[in-house]
């Protein structure tokens, strides 16, 4: 499987990068959203390659299915951009930001790539008894408290979102 995966990875990576670049550069948010979905899908595919099947499924269900739908709702709720309206901040800003993004990425790469493991270990550990079971066992054995906390967090964000978005006084 490892022999096969590199080309596959490169393909998905290329699709992902393409989607990301397109997303960032589109004028219409709707387009951006669709390109983002593309990227998310390719990332999910890469998860599969990396033996994270459960995560891949969650990626698609939550991101592509949940979050992106939310984005689309909002996009339809708000006024679409007037054509001809500036997409970016001033040109100098775009250049500076691009530079910043690049050097930041380079710095990170320079810092971490050196210490990255040269090769993957035996992935069978991740797959024993099924990836999903592994994740759930770990989650509920070691991370039960963070799990509960996160559920509270979600509840809070949900209530917060409702409260914020509700029409009326006191917002």
């Amino acid at each position, binding site marked *: 499987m490892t022999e096969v995966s590199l080309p596959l990875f490169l393909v998905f990576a290329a699709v992902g990068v393409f989607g990301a670049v397109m997303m960032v550069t589109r004028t219409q948010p709707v387009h951006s959203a669709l390109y983002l979905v593309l990227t998310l899908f390719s990332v999910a595919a890469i998860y599969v390659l990396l033996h994270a099947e459960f995560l891949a499924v969650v990626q698609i269900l939550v991101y592509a299915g949940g979050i992106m739908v939310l984005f689309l709702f909002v996009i339809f709720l708000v006024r679409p951009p007037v054509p001809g309206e500036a997409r970016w*901040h001033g040109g100098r800003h775009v250049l*500076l*930001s691009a530079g*910043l993004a690049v*050097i*930041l990425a380079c*710095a*990170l790469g*320079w*810092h971490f790539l050196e210490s990255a493991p040269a090769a993957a270990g035996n992935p069978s550990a991740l797959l024993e008894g099924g990836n999903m079971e592994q994740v759930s066992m770990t989650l509920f054995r070691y991370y039960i408290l963070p799990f509960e906390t996160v559920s509270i967090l979600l509840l809070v964000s949900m209530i917060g979102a409702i409260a914020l978005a509700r029409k009326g006084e006191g917002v």
Partner: protein
Amino acid sequence: MLDLIWLIPLIPLTGVLINGFFGRRMPLKTVGVIACATVLIAFLLSVGAVVQLAGSEPNPDGLRIHELSLGDWMPLDAVSVPWEFSLDPLGSVLLLVVTGVGFLIHVYSIGYMAHEKDYARFFTYLNLFMGMMLTLVLAGNMMVMFVGWEGVGLCSYLLIGFYYDKPFDLRTGLTCADAGRKAFITNRIGDFAFLIGVLYLAINFGTLTFSEISERVAHAGPGAHGLLVGVGILLFLGACGKSAQIPLYVWLPDAMAGPTPVSALIHAATMVTAGVYMVARMSALYAQAPEAMAVIAAVGALTAIFAAIMGTAATDIKKVLAYSTVSQLGYMFAACGVGAYVAGIFHLMTHAFFKALLFLGAGSVIHGMNGEQDIRKMGGLKKKMPRTYWTFLVATLAIAGIPGLAGFFSKDEILWGAWSSGNKIVWLTLAAAAGVTAFYMFRLVYLTFWGTFRGGDEAESKVHESNSLMTVPLMVLAVLAAVGGWIGIPKLLTFGKDINLFHHWLAPAISLPHGDGHGVEASHSAGLEFGLMAVAVGIAVFGILLALHVYKSSTLPQKIADTLGPVYKLVRNLFWVDELYKFAILKPFYAACRGFRWVDIHVVDGLVNGTRNATLGLSYISNLHDRIVVDGLVNLTGWVTTWLHRMLSRVQTGMIQTYLSVMLLGVFILIAYYTLAG
């Protein structure tokens, strides 16, 4: 009845309570009767107790003594002091004298004070005095005695200052209240020494009971000799205060500011003799301390002559008698000092009779003269006040030492005691004092009763004899002054028969120095004794004749005074002793007091206030510092911040993405740093 002796002081004290609480609302007569009755009861009780004592079995030492303890008073660690009373022959003499003479004077006072507004107050004080004096006499230990000792001092203070709103001595500007205070303070000085002596006794012998002190002192051993001499002198200093001896006699002449019965009772017959009584009580101690006895003899003799001389120049009838009292007290002390205690106490008794009589007689004169006390304005009162005159004359003869009268026996016994103890100088001094005494007493009699009246016609017409409430006590006392001496008649005059009751009664209560054969008993030769007696009488008669000669002429006294010049002036001004005390002690003392007050305000408190001011000053400086330096720094910080704010607020574009850029730049720098640092 002996077990009831504690009641004797208490009975007059009930009189104090009754008259003190209700006296102002009761009729005058009732007040007087209550006061006299309490004293009379005390007197009867005393007689009963003494009779019973006389009939009791003597202890192995031959002493009849009855001791009684009413329980603890001050149970101290060093010494336990109970409420103790005791009666022995020595005390019994005083007891009878005090209650007897006291009763007579109380009766006299009813008449004398009849016109006074503060009648009840007077009798309250007088009864209080009786209670305290009897406590003193009957005390079984030094502290109970001290209660009486101080108590009589207090009564003396109150009674001297009885006319508290009146001036007394115009020459010195003293008021009656001043005189009382002077008496009290002078006494206190003596008491101070007395108390120190008591402390020494208590610490070293562990008891203050008289009988135990006598016993323990006798076995104290030679190591305690110095201590005993010291204690003896300290106690004697206390006696000096109470009994007006040099150097503390100055209060007694001024004590005449009190009503005359008070002078008779307190300042002649009873209280002032307390010092003598105390010394006799402590005879066991003095027996171990001959040096202290020598001091007593010397001081007594000196006081006797010194006071007698001052008496010759006094013009106030009571002051003459006061100096006479001081002088006679000197006699008694001299007697004690030479070991003739019995003679001393004997003289104490006879002196109580004739001196009380003299004072009461003087009071009668003053009463008859409507308050006049200056003998230069009297004269010829013989006819106007016959009863007063005759009784007064008896007393005068008695004090002068005319044979057959009370004073003769006691005085002679003292002189013989002084001679036979080997103290010839003491004898000489006392004999000379006897002559001077005779002189000033007859001077007094002459100026008062003989010759012609010098106070003007108007005053003369008002002179009157006193009523019988006053004259009857005079007569009773006159009888006592005349025949009271016969109970102490010396062997010499009874053809060898020893019927000296007084001596037999008292001697066991007295301890004399060991191996000292020169007590009054030891007579070397009857001839010598008789000769000395004759010399003394001769001196007295010479004094009398001199006085009669001098004061018969109206010009001679002045001539003598002029001749003597400065000497007369010295005597007239009482040797300037009061002035000496004033300038040598009182003035510096008050100056020191004022100095201390200045120190207190300016130095001690000044330091405190200085601290306050220093603190305030520091606070001011600190305030300045606050405003300039601290506040300045704060403001500087403010300015810097404002400036920085102006600079930095430009960075705040409000654009989230700008902030984000900067943040990411920071992240980049951090990463770069960690990467480079390794």
